[in-house]
């Protein structure tokens, strides 16, 4: 008797699972009219925001998958013969370029971007920028005061490499994270190759930890595990807004980064994809996104949200991404020697 109950339950579970496995059913085809599939590098909350707003405006349902930049680029490239997604949203241009080089991205020039600054548009028309952020230094004020008393907060990159701060700094691992690689390249391009390496060799032993994920330093600084960290300014700003005792410092000669959106070539819903890109660049979406993420919107018609750092007022270096890309292996190889 008991056995029949178990078998019945088992079958019930199996049957209810069938829809999960069904692919390409009629239902799906109908839904396609009203669907968009997004690989999202921007974080969970930001993805949801775009999704909700887009649906409100167009009635199209957004299904997003949020994962790390490298992983999503890898997926897009792997799937290029049978693309599963329509859009790659967020992350620096260098990643999108990787996918474009493999022929996995579609070209699209959105009319909304007509007024955008030149650096926000891909000459090859694969990607379009929709936000800007920059690298900065985050300080947990409480912990800093506990540990270092009245010592002034660092204002420049040089100030950061202070031997007193040993063990209290957190920087991501450049071999694992593009954020940290950007940081390393910034120092090399700012100071020149030799001086840059001197700086890094001075800083590296002071770092307490090199986590793999770019999102870690803001988190670790915010919760007080470390006093100082290198991260994107907008991420640090969000922690500050949440109520963590984080102070944000934008040192001179820092690097800016443009976050971009692109469409996958041969995706299931190409028309919806175009609409989405237009939407992301639109004033409404930009305003909402800027408010949530505290990044700087690229749509000139949108004002800077309170709490965000105005990148146009930042002293940015002229960053050569091509050089950064070409040098990658050499830089990482040297980095291994600097850091054990």
């Amino acid at each position, binding site marked *: 008797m*008991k056995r029949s*109950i*178990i078998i019945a*339950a088992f079958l019930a*579970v*199996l049957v*209810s*699972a069938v829809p*999960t*496995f069904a*692919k390409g059913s009629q239902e799906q085809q109908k839904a396609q009219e009203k669907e968009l599939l997004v690989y999202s590098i921007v*974080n*969970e*909350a930001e993805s949801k925001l775009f999704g909700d707003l887009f649906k409100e405006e167009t009635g199209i349902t957004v299904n*997003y*998958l*949020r*994962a*790390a*930049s*490298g*992983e999503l*680029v*890898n997926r897009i*490239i*792997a*799937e290029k013969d*049978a693309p*599963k997604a329509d859009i790659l949203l967020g992350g620096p241009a260098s*990643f999108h370029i*990787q996918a474009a080089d493999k022929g996995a991205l579609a070209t699209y020039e959105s009319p909304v971007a007509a007024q955008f600054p030149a650096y926000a548009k891909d000459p090859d028309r694969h990607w379009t920028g929709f936000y800007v952020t920059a690298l900065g230094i985050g300080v947990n004020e409480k*912990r800093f005061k506990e540990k270092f008393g009245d010592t002034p907060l660092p204002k420049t990159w040089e100030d950061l490499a202070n031997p007193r701060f040993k063990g209290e700094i957190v920087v991501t*691992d450049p*071999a*694992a*994270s*593009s954020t940290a690689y950007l940081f390393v390249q910034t120092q090399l391009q700012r100071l020149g190759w030799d001086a840059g390496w001197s700086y890094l060799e001075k800083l590296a032993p002071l*770092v*307490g*930890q*090199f986590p*793999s*994920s770019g*999102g870690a330093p803001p*988190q670790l600084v*915010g*919760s*007080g*595990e*470390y006093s100082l960290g290198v991260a994107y300014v907008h*991420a640090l700003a*969000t*922690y500050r807004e*949440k*109520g*963590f005792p984080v102070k944000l410092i934008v040192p001179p000669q820092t690097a800016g980064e443009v976050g971009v959106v692109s469409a996958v070539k041969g995706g299931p819903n190409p028309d919806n994809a175009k609409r989405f890109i237009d939407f992301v660049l639109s004033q409404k979406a930009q305003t909402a996104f800027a408010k949530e993420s505290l990044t700087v919107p690229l749509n000139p018609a949108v004002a800077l949200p309170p709490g965000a750092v105005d990148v146009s007022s930042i002293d940015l270096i002229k960053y050569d991404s091509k050089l950064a890309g070409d040098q990658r292996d050499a830089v990482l*190889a040297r980095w*291994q020697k600097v*850091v*054990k």
Partner: protein
Amino acid sequence: MRLSRALRDPFLVVAYLVLVAFLGLFVVYPLARAALTPRPSDWAKLLSSPRWIAAMEHTLAMTVLSTVTATAMGYAYAYGVTKGRVPGARLFSLVPFLYLVSPPFVGGLAFTLLLGRKGIVTHGLLGLDVSIYGWGGLWLAQTLSFFPISFIICRSALANLGGALETAARGMGAGRFRVFRTVSLPLTAPAIAQAALFCALSVMSDFGNPMLIGGRYRVLATEVYTQLSGWADAGMSAAAGLILLAPALVVFALQRAATGAGERYATVGSRGRGIGRDDDVSPPARLALAAFCGIVAVFVLAQFAVIAYGALTRIWSVDGTFTLAHLGAASKYGREIKDSLAFPALAASLCAAASLASAFLVQRCRAPLAPVIDLATILPAAIPHTLVGLAFAISFNGKPLDLAGSGAILVVAMAVSYLPFGYRAVMAALAQVKPSIDDAAAALGASRSRALFDVILPIVRGAVAAAFVFAFIVGTGTMSAVIFLVSFKTPLASVTILNLAEMGSWSDAAALASILCVLAFAGLAAVRLLAGRRFFQAAFR
């Protein structure tokens, strides 16, 4: 078995073919494809650059250290709960299972909150400012994470000892410690070896703990993830994972050799009911064991308490006011939660069925290719789960079999990852069933497959249940096996937890993790109700 005879039992033939196809398609094929992914330049990089060499050294060091402590801890805890007869043994027994449920990420979060620089214990209680990041913290975290595996294996061995031999030894005048040293310990040696094997393999492929607590201390398992997620470099990612196969296979071979010798240790006929004497352990020793179990239990429970605290307070470690907002936010992830319970349930069923089929065909039926089936079933144990996920992502995207984006790929990846544990459990149980039982069933007119359902399965149902329970519990919290496989229609809560934590929404992450844990246990409770007490207890014996 001659073919003409075998065909008289079509169910068996079909089961055999399905099993072989399953193993070939979902174990051998993905692994082969993953092995072919790295380019020669990837291998050159891996074996020459200091970063990778350091990662390999670290992996080795952690494996040895954590395996020793996790195995010892699991054994001590199991001893306390069985022969030691510590008070509250029943409750203590549940604690390790609790630990299996938590997604690895959450364990690390809790750790930080308890033992980090601002940790409740280290900072609040002891006034220290200690960094737990690095190999020390990792060692502690891994020991705690994997002692449940050791506990499960050692406990069933200790419980099955029966007590007759120890009683005999005591009767001959041996003191308690001597009896332990010369009788109990050697008799449970095969179980210890097996526990060490599983712990070692788990440590080698552990991804969550090093991610969070490793700090500057890199290990290969995380490289599999970061190479792909940070750089989109599938080749390096696969290479890092494949390198891990080598030591895993060595550990395997060692354990096989040890178990071969362990055949001698099979206590004939004692399907022991754990009848130990009440004084197997002296009162001071019992007290020490109880204290030990207590400390461990408190620590494990503290982690859960901390997660609950994080879920219910405003801002993690900053603002402690009570709020239900995070739970509210977390409960919006209904689809993720549903998937995180349904998929492991399916995977666990698949795993239990495959374990039974494999063990039965290999051990009982001496089916053709039995050694190959045996190897293929155990092989996933040697492969880090992140590599399993990567291999599946590579192999089932496009031709010849496109499963990407479906729930099937997730279910199968999970089932394959946990197959070795279930297989071992069922094999061990089958070994205790005398061959004459099979013969008797046949003589009474039951075909092999009928005998399997009528006779064999009821006898080994405990092991099958254990396979199910283990796969389900671990499956709800798994991240490493599935992180590369989730897709639009198949989101999983564990990945969402990772994403939330990454963007700093720790409280939301903790809230979602809490919901998941509670539901997973509710699911197990439901199974217990359905399947009856005996079935369920058998899993924990």
